[in-house]
């Protein structure tokens, strides 16, 4: 049915002024396919939130407000044409870099890390903004360069990526730093970065691993060690992972049923409504629930890649491709961490975990994708 609707939208696109909500969506630069998929993920998130928060309507209401704000931001962003974003990218980049510098100097401490900036009216994390600014900037930069990129282009791009990544890493927020690097790196990847550089970089990271290990904080090293042997200390650092595996495993094929997860409701599961909400979901919904959610996420990613393929210039392509992959990486890192494949890093499950900043910045990136998809020029350059 959705496909029919979509088909209809596409057919009506070439200028037939027919009164209908397909028209209305086009006027507002909204991609229906993407919107419906996102709403589906958000709906799943709200149901899980209700269970994870212990049937708290307040928590749901608060989540609905945050997501609503995110959707508004998404629609607003979708109104401007991609060229505007390309022009704004360097300014946004340097602004965000400045904010990151401010955080270093006078940011708020929360949970031992300096991430927040209090602007009087709102507190927010400039690193979240950088997740958006980074792919835009790299894509905008590469837009003007001959591709595949030359060595100089690559080096400049690496500097552009490296400076904010280092600042965020110092906060310390390794997870976000890696996501920022990924966002820029994916843009570079889509620009046709030569394989020799890719493999060379991977080999370099592998060679430097011991040095990087030394640079890690103790708790970060612990998380990696715990990943390798989670049962070694089930009440200490391995507790989160052990409990989330118990939650997921006890869910089985069909799950214990919505609101019936014992691990979450009896407080065995830590961070149940934020980073570990995937465990709550799969405990109650089982393997089939997981497959459904994964399908939804993959459909979102697929739609984003589709938008990237149909994009009309290099900036749009690279930005859309990078945003699509970053979104997937979000999903992969969060799920991988909850099921014990990856170390515990503070990455929420996109649009499902409780939390405002991440939902708003994610939806903003989808706004950009919609902008790319809906502001089409008759003559592609």
């Amino acid at each position: 049915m959705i496909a029919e609707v979509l088909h209809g939208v596409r057919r009506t696109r070439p200028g037939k002024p027919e009164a209908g909500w397909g028209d209305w969506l086009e006027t507002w630069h909204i991609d229906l396919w993407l919107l419906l998929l996102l709403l589906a993920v958000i709906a799943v998130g709200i149901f899980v939130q209700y269970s994870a928060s212990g049937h708290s309507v307040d928590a749901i209401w608060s989540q609905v407000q945050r997501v609503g704000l995110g959707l508004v931001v998404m629609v607003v962003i979708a109104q401007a044409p991609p060229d505007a974003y390309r022009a704004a990218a360097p300014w946004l980049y340097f602004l965000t870099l400045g904010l990151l510098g401010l955080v270093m100097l006078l940011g708020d401490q929360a949970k031992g890390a300096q991430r927040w900036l209090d602007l009087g009216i709102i507190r927010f994390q400039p690193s979240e903004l950088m997740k958006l600014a980074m792919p835009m900037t790299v894509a905008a930069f590469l837009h003007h360069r001959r591709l595949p990129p030359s060595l100089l282009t690559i080096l400049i791009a690496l500097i552009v990526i490296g400076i904010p990544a280092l600042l965020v890493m110092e906060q310390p927020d390794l997870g976000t730093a890696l996501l920022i690097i990924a966002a820029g790196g994916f843009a570079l990847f889509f620009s046709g970065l030569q394989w020799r550089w890719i493999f060379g970089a991977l080999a370099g990271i592998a060679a430097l691993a011991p040095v990087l290990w030394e640079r890690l904080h103790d708790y970060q090293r612990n998380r990696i060690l715990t990943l390798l042997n989670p049962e070694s200390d089930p009440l200490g650092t391995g507790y989160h992972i052990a409990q989330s595996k118990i939650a997921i495993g006890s869910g089985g094929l069909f799950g214990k049923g919505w609101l019936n997860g014992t691990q979450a409701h009896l407080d065995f599961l830590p961070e149940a409504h934020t980073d570990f909400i995937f465990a709550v979901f799969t405990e109650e919904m089982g393997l089939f629930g997981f497959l459904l959610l994964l399908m939804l996420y993959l459909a979102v990613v697929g739609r984003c890649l589709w938008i990237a393929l149909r994009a009309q210039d290099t900036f749009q392509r690279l930005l859309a491709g990078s945003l699509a992959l970053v979104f997937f990486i979000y999903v992969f890192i969060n799920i991988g961490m909850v099921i014990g494949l990856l170390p515990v890093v503070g990455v929420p499950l996109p649009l499902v975990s409780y939390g405002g900043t991440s939902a708003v910045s994610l939806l903003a990136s989808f706004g950009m994708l919609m902008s790319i998809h809906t502001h089409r020029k008759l003559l592609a350059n």
Partner: protein
Amino acid sequence: MWIATRKRRRPALKNVQDEKNAFLRRAAIATLFIVVCSLVLVARMIKLQVVEHEQLSTRADENRMRVVPVAPVRGLIYDRNGAVLAQNKPAFVLEVTPELNPDLDALLARLDDIVELTEADIARFKERVRKTPRYRGVPLRSNLSMEEVARYEVNRHDFRGVEVSAGLTRNYPLGASAAHVIGYVGGITEDELAKAADDRQYQGLSQIGKIGVERSQEDPLRGASGAKIIEANAYGRPLRELDYQRGYPGRNLLLSIDAKVQLVAEQALGDLNGAIVALDPRNGEIIALVSKPGYEPHLFVEGIDNKTYKALLADPKRPLFNRALQGMYPPGSTIKPAMAIAGLEYGVVDPSHTEYCSGGMSLPGSSRRYRCHKRNGHGAMNMLLGVMKSCDVYFYQLGLSLGVDRIHASMTGFGLGHATGIDLPLEKNGLYPSREWKQRARKENWYPGETLNIAIGQGYTLTTPMQLAQMTARIAMRGGGYEPHVLRATEDAITKVRTLIAPKTLAPIELKDNRNWQTVIEAMEETTHSPGGTAYRIGKDAPYRIGSKTGTAQVASMRQDEKEARSLEETPPHLRDHALFIAFAPVDDPQIAIAVLAEHAGHGGAAASPIARQVMDQYLLGEVRYTPVTAATAPEAVPTADETLEPDPEE
């Protein structure tokens, strides 16, 4: 940097189609990457949710489910007529879990406003805290009043790890009178848990039988713990009950003790310290078992504090000492009937054999004089008179003829010098000396004079009142006998189905000539019923026939140069002789055999036999008809001729 890039804009435009194609290839690779990563996630999820599902489900259940044991109700203890000897009474107990209260002193100070706490309560509590695992609740106060419970309930939110539990507490209606038989329960110590065959048996229980029947029958009394399976959250707070497994109450015990006889026996001893054991010779059932002084068992049930406990231990009267089973005394003349049987059996005497008693005798080649208790001598003594008047010289001669080996064999045959095997804890063996024993223990040879001493139950000989009662029963049964026991039957608390405990038959004492039993039993009967018999005072008006023997156990030996024994009044109490008495009745159809020991009470006939008579009256007649003649009870009663005719220093 940025300006430099603008200059190069033009060449970048050239390869639009190439760039598009390159992007397409990269998008395909990205898609592949996404698919591979997704498959990794799916594979891992299948491993967790399908392969390891069962194992992880179990762990989830283990996480949330707590098994809370439910203590079984301890079995009741009844006497032979159905009177309750031990029961469970409802009581509110204030319990504190030390693990949840790191600062116990502060807690106790706060609790003092809610419930009344004595110093003894606090001292006892602190002591038990040290001995109990930290996660277990430790009783602080028992028997809370309803007001105290109400005050606690109002303030309970201030007291974490403090609970008022409506539990059952053990209660002993006879109190101190039967404490030495019934025993008591008390808090389980870590030691006891470690020693228990299966410490899961004690899940939910806080008390264990410490002594007496409560200890020896701990297993049937305890019952089986039930269990509540509750769901708890990560902090251990119970949320709801998922399952309830019923336990099973402990079995009720039906003892052979007769509570009325027990009380009469306890009262008959009066202020004297001592022991009484009465049993049914026809089956070995203990009718009464008294050790005085007794102690209040409830002190221990509630948990005794150190001060009180030390005071009990230090009491010179030794109230915690079970004289009936642990007390070892020389049996004195009470072994003379058994000695007489041994003499007849080995053929060293016949009933008409006569010895002349001149008040004492000496062994050839020795100047040491072995006295008879009657200074001026009994004159010519045959077996009947020897037993009846308890002539020492007759039995010195008999002992000499038998020799130490045959005496040892015969007396141990009657059960002296080793535990009877009664189903109560802590029974002592005592000692019946022999050549081998002396060689082993003292590294010395046996001297002939010692044979004389053991022939009248003195010297090294040590027996318990329990053994004397058993010896009496075996004479009464003409060699037959049963292992003494207090447990007659156990009863299922729910179905009320009873399991009888069959008495254990002992190998009979076989004599070459069974008429010898008759000879000695007649002599014991004459002791009670013939004027001049040492127990005539209780036999002369008895409505049933009694076979008996008096005895006196020396505490301080008499010096060789003393001509006359000191009178009872002249002797300091702690040096006075122990009074002993054994008896059975009725002679033709023995239903009760009894041994009485009264410490430092003087002569057996005067001090111990009236006690035995009262006990036998109560058991055989259902009431006490005999009133002992004492200065206090009968100031006006003029002593009868018979009474005054009693041989004065009886033995």
